[in-house]
């Protein structure tokens, strides 16, 4: 650290605070009141000079007194700040230097961990000024933290310039997303009114003010406290203000500064704040004594403030006025001096890049720009990296040799940050270079970029061109074919995908990388499964898992396990085995200490599968493990949705609301895949609470956002919608005819679409169509048990107890009301109740009890007692509930087939369970396993 010069200003740093007492108290109480996720946030918006920073300072000092740990950072307006700048800067004040991490998600986790460490057992207040300049990574971090994913008890206080929020500023979007969280407040700071302005003026002048003077100050300042304060000072000092604009007011002040102070102020205005004393000393050519004298004068004239980390201008408004005043030649000299001064220390590349560019020295700026791009990439700030690569291109001319490499980087970083158009145009530039990469390479890249941009037809053509390119190596050809097969699969062209995947697999087996092999196998497997040859598909993907196991590469293992688990739990509806595979894959990757994203995704599949087969407590446990990976982005959304499904099922309203809020905040680009389940859950939750209008609104919104090919999603949604109308009808509330009509249209559309769907999809759809038919009969007041009996049978066949039990409840209800087949009805009701209790579905069980009471049916007699609990020892506690069931049957001496029959799972699945049991108990025979079990039990 260099010398720091502090001064006492002639008067207190801050003028009196007028007209903000209420706002201040409100902000503090909002920040203290954390929402259910343990987070809270206040965003203060308002024009420049309205007093945002002042409110921040006041709040910080009182919350610090109240025991908060405070971290402060300021966003920079240099356009090309480095990723996460304000937060990393804040952490450095506590000597935490965040290290690069293995992935963007891991980085968010690491930052959260540092924040937790700084906080200790205190609550943390993160203060961010000038948030409108925050880089994309910082904005994402805020969403992540405030959605509660970082597990940091954090309060965020940020100031945003209102001027910046016009137009398309990205922060608009972030604020709109954050607004959905209950614990977030956006405070719009208005200018002072006339009386408040007069109060401020009086406080500064320290006495009476002529009404016309006060009026003039109000009129000129428009109630802006910063300007009003300055004008009041003029009034007090007897200065006659002739100028009307803020600009003229300040320029006349600058003229009054002593010459050296004048230089200091201009130098600070040209720099990137805060400016350390040692840097300033190198930029302003004055002796030490002169410099200190000059800074003292600048502080005394209220232009500059001196803080622990360096000098700043008192207000950004002043900096903006001064920057326009400096002659271009003067500015060039100042920037050159800054660049030279900064080169002496450990290089701060973003600042160096800025100053060299402004000094008109592109060649000297280039290395710093490139270094900044690389370090942005290390922090997964692809947006920032892309901007650096682009400015690097601007610094070079067409004939410079490094341009080819720069273009390649610029294209790839644009692709990474989702600027697909930009990526494609950079690639075009690249292809025109004399030293461009090979034709095949260019086609492959273009195809990838096009596919990402959603232009699938053109992407397909590019892959074909890559395959035909004369300079295409066998390896590239295998890779192109595998990608193409994957693309065709996404387009639903299963026959084409199948043929292409076959070719790709052949090529990849000879010349391909493991990644290509896995990709081609997955495409082949899924296309086969969708073309009603599931066994062939399964065999291919199992083989891919074996290949990945041999290579041991985490990404390949992750992809292979993911495909297998998805195939099993999805089209093949072998959920039990799919769950096993997913868990095994996750464990495997955990042992390798890699593939965090894949682990999260695998566990999400496992949890969703467990939910469907009714093993809710197990699903809960899996989700808890998965959340410990602190997922971000789409992965986080998946997990939160899966967990929320459990909360809705368990009837934990508060937790469900918290997760739904978090999902709504994080949703971006997820499309129907995430939005529709969120809306469905919201509707389901509202129905348990008897809030039919809310349920109806959620479903109706969902109907506006569905595509005709989202069949399964529409199925669940339409069922929820019809159920909401049926429940409203049953509760004696009005049914919405418009909503009902639209739901019927959706069901018709769905029924029409089922014919074209692949067989596995058709099977699920039939189950939902049955449920919809049942609800319709309720809405129409026909008490018909028949559709419900059909639905129950359909869901039994799919091995999904929850919808099956729900259908039984309705079946029983209809029969009891009709007074027909009472015995069957009672049986169905008891069976539903047993399922509900076993799963822990409290609101559902309560509904069954209500129906039973209404028709005086006893549920208790035949309710099986709580499943046989095994006293757990350390050894058995490693086993899942299912594994314990298998082990207990095994100890009875049953064969795998017999166990399968008893537990309604395939023999093969029993085999997999047994393998796991052996692994976990570290035994090799069934006898040994039985012995462990019997000793423990």
């Amino acid at each position: 650290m260099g010398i720091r010069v502090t001064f006492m200003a002639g008067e207190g740093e801050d003028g009196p605070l007028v007209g903000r007492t209420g706002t201040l108290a409100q902000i503090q109480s909002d920040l203290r009141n954390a929402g259910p996720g343990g987070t809270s946030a206040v965003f203060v918006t308002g024009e420049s000079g309205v007093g945002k920073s002042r409110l921040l300072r006041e709040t910080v000092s009182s919350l610090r007194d109240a025991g908060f740990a405070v971290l402060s950072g300021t966003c920079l307006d240099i356009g090309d700040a480095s990723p996460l700048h304000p937060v990393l800067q804040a952490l450095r004040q506590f000597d935490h230097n965040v290290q690069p991490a293995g992935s963007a998600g891991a980085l968010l986790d690491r930052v959260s961990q540092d924040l937790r460490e700084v906080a200790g057992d205190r609550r943390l207040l993160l203060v961010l000024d000038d948030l409108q300049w925050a880089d994309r990574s910082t904005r994402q971090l805020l969403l992540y933290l405030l959605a509660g994913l970082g597990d940091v008890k954090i309060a965020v206080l940020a100031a945003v310039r209102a001027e910046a929020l016009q137009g398309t500023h990205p922060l608009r979007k972030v604020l709109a997303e954050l607004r959905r969280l209950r614990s977030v407040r956006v405070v719009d700071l208005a200018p002072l009114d006339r009386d408040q302005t007069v109060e401020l003026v009086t406080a500064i002048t320290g006495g009476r003010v002529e009404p016309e003077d006060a009026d003039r100050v109000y009129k000129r300042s428009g109630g802006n406290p910063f300007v009003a304060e300055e004008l009041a000072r003029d009034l007090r000092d007897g200065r006659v203000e002739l100028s009307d604009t803020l600009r003229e007011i300040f320029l006349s002040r600058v003229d009054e500064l002593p010459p050296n102070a004048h230089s200091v102020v201009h130098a600070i205005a040209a720099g990137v704040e805060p400016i350390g004393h040692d840097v300033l000393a190198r930029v302003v050519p004055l002796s030490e004594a002169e410099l200190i004298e000059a800074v003292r004068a600048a502080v005394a004239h209220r232009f500059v403030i001196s803080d622990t980390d360096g000098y700043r201008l008192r207000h950004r408004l002043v900096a903006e006025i001064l920057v326009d005043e400096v002659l271009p030649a003067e500015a060039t000299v100042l920037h050159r001096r800054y660049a030279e001064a900064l080169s002496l220390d450990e290089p701060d590349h973003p600042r160096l890049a800025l100053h060299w560019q402004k000094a008109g020295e592109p060649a000297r700026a280039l290395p710093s720009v490139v270094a900044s791009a690389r370090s942005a990439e290390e922090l997964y700030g692809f947006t920032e990296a892309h901007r650096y690569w682009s400015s690097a291109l601007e610094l070079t001319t067409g004939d410079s040799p490094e341009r080819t490499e720069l273009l390649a980087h610029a294209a790839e970083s644009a692709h990474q940050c989702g600027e697909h158009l930009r990526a494609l145009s950079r690639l075009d530039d690249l292809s025109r270079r004399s030293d461009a990469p090979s034709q095949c390479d260019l086609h492959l890249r273009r195809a990838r970029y096009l596919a990402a941009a959603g232009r699938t037809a053109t992407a397909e053509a590019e892959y074909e061109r890559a395959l035909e390119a004369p300079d295409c190596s066998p390896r590239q050809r295998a890779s192109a074919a595998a990608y193409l097969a994957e693309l065709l699969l996404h387009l639903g062209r299963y026959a084409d995908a199948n043929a292409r995947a076959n070719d790709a697999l052949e090529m990849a087996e000879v010349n391909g990388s493991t990644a290509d092999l896995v990709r081609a196998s997955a495409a082949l497997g899924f296309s086969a499964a969708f073309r009603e040859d599931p066994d062939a598909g399964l065999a291919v993907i199992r083989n891919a898992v074996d290949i990945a196991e041999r290579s041991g590469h985490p990404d390949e293992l992750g992809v292979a396990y993911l495909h297998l688990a998805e195939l099993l739990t999805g089209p093949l509806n072998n959920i039990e085995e799919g769950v096993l595979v997913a868990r095994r894959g996750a464990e495997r990757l955990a042992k390798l200490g890699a593939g965090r994203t894949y682990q999260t995704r695998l566990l999400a599949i496992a949890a969703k599968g467990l939910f469907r087969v009714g093993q809710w407590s197990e699903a809960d446990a899996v989700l808890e493990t998965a959340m410990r990976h602190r997922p971000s982005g789409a992965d986080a959304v998946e997990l939160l949705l899966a967990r929320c499904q459990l909360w809705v099922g368990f009837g934990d309203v508060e937790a469900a609301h918290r997760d739904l809020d978090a999902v709504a905040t994080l949703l971006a680009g997820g499309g129907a895949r995430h939005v529709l389940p969120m809306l469905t859950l919201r509707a389901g939750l509202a129905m348990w609470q008897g809030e039919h209008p809310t349920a109806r609104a959620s479903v109706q919104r969902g109907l506006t956002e569905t595509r005709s090919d989202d069949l399964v999603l529409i199925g669940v949604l339409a069922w929820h919608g019809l159920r909401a109308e049926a429940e409203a009808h049953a509760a004696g509330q009005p049914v919405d005819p418009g909503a009902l009509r639209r739901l019927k249209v959706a069901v018709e559309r769905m029924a029409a679409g089922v014919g074209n769907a692949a067989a596995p999809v058709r099977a699920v759809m039939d189950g939902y169509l049955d449920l919809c038919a049942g609800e319709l009969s309720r809405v129409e007041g026909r008490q018909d048990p028949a559709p419900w009996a059909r639905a129950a049978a359909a869901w039994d066949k799919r091995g999904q107890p929850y919808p099956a039990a729900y259908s039984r409840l309705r079946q029983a209800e209809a029969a009891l009301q009709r007074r027909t087949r009472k015995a069957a009805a009672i049986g169905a009701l008891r069976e539903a109740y047993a399922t509900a209790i076993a799963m822990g579905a409290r609101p559902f069980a309560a509904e069954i009890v209500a129906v039973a009471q209404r028709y005086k049916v006893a549920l208790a007699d035949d309710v099986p007692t709580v499943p046989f609990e095994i006293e757990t020892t350390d050894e058995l506690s490693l086993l899942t509930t299912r594994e314990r069931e298998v082990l207990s049957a095994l100890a009875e001496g049953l064969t795998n087939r017999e166990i399968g029959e008893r537990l309604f799972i395939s023999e093969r699945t029993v085999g997999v369970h047994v393998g796991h049991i052996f692994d976990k108990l570290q035994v090799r025979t069934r006898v040994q396993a039985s012995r462990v079990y019997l000793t423990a039990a």
Partner: protein
Amino acid sequence: MNQSVWGPVQREMTDLLQGHPDDVPAVVEQLKELQSILGHVPPLLRENPLCDFNQLYLTITEGVLERLYAGKFKDPAFLSRLDVEFATRYFDALRAWAGAGTSPRCPEVWVCLFQRIGGPDCRPLPSACAGVNAHINYDLPFALVTTFDHLGRDPIDDSDQHHDYLEINDIFADAIPGLRRGYLEKWQLLIDTMNGCLDDWWQGEAVEYTRNVAWRNAQKLWGVRHDMLATDRERAGLDRTAAGLSKLLLSPLGSFLQ
């Protein structure tokens, strides 16, 4: 700040604008309530020019909602988001409106229309058109950029999103029969009397053309969206041009459109 810009319905207006609709059905609801509140703003009541626009906008948005329910769009999630973002900007402008000369955050193009709420009266068609002009020529490009940013996609010609976007032209054509052929010639004549930038910017068919201009402008904004200075320059430029057109529409000349 002038607190009484909405006169006797100030309270209702403030309350209504507290809401931030998040989906298309909610946007329709908000526009409906707005319509009934605007009908009570003296002195023109239901004859006020903003009412004319709001009614048209409500009709158009109901048309969008109907098509969403009917599954007419290729990418309904995109279109829903766009509709919400689009409406947000209109509500933002209303929130920022505090009277002529005291609304620094209200775009100039909206100020042109808002300041006529209190009279003098102008004909319904030009009034509605001035609103459409503000909303399409100024708000729409920004709404498009924000929507694409939200969905992580690019504004690409001939994409599903572009197709859906163009589909809305039909809804506009249905809702504004007055803008069809016969009137277009008059409109063209009016535009022809203006020289300079308006001329090459506004030619061919009114709404369809304008909406395409908005798409082009969105693509232009998309390219500079990370550059705050450039974005702001573009914003100011769009506001100026669109405001120029609105002033023309609301001038005595504009009534000749009816």
